[in-house]
């Protein structure tokens, strides 16, 4: 009986310990090592490169990427802060800034993809532009010719309707 109670207590203690570890993970910010910071900075470096390639792709497709470049510069500022923090031995701050940089760069990557798709869709409608030009030019020339014919008739009618005037 006593053995059963001891087993039960040990089981409860271990269970409580596991629960506490899981609960603490949500509240405790664990300190970061230099290796963590270096690894996170590497990820940030990759994310910046990936985002820039996506932005270049969107620009090549004809999208306006000025807003994305502003956000990339914010991300690069975070990257720089992370590097400074790493150099000064503040690994937790370095990981934090590098993570923010990755988040921002990944957001730019996603938005660049959307912008590229929109730009490609707009470029695929090039035939609308050509139709607008051809139809617009034809209508304009037609209207102008009509106005010219009307004005010419009125002018001719006006000249032919004049009565000769004898002077002297």
């Amino acid at each position, binding site marked *: 009986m006593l053995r059963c109670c001891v087993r039960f207590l040990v089981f409860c203690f271990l269970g409580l310990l596991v629960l506490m570890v899981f609960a603490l993970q949500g509240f405790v910010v664990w300190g970061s090592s230099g290796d963590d910071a270096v690894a996170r900075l590497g990820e940030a470096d990759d994310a*910046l*490169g990936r985002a*820039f*390639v996506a*932005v*270049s792709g969107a*620009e*090549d497709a004809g999208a306006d*990427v*000025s807003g994305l*470049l502003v956000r*990339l*510069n914010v991300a*690069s500022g975070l*990257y*720089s802060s992370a*590097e*400074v923090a790493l*150099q*000064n031995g503040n690994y937790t701050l370095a990981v934090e800034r590098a993570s923010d940089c990755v988040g921002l760069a990944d957001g730019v990557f996603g938005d660049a993809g959307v912008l590229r798709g929109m730009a490609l869709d707009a470029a695929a409608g*090039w035939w609308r*532009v*050509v139709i*607008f*030009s*051809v139809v*617009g*030019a034809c209508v*304009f*020339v037609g209207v*102008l010719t009509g*106005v*010219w014919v009307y*004005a*010419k008739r009125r*002018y*001719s009618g006006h000249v032919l309707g004049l009565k000769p005037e004898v002077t002297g």
Partner: protein
Amino acid sequence: MSGLQNIKGVFMVVGLVGVLLFAWPSLGLIVHLPVGEQFSELYILGPGHMASDYPFNVVTGVDYLVYVGVGNHLGSSAYYEWNVKLLNWTEPLPNSTAATPSPLPRLYGYRVFLADNETREDTLTFSFSFLNVTSAENITTVGSLTINGAAYNVDKSCVWDPVYNGTYSRLLVELWLYNASQGALAYHNRFVDLILNMTAGS
């Protein structure tokens, strides 16, 4: 009939201009204007945003401010990094012919993303800590260099130069450009440097 001829001329000019205006969007799809010369800028300005009053005689513990400017004229957006290195008088500068950077390790780097024809200036604040100044051997040893708040142990010896009467070092700024095919930043064959005299007041 000269009046009718004049009106006819006006109608023809208006017609021509109108047709060109309607054709303009389509011409934009076909005609591409030639791109001008493609290049990147890298420059350093003094603390007053002018090409003057550059730091020269440096002493321990004083913050010096300059501005590093990068300009993009490559015809599309670009991803740059400017890197700072500290060289003594005998260490090699980048090789412009071979387009290779200085072999010394980079201390500080700052990345910028620029649209075409955009220029950006950022601050570069630096200060030195001299380990010792050996007057007998005329050597100044730079213990640490702090750039924009990041401290670097450099431990670099600068020897007295009898020709120019000073103990000189160079604060070198190199420009690197992101190469999408390599997936990495690569040296862009542009650099500027500040020559600093490490003896005064130290």
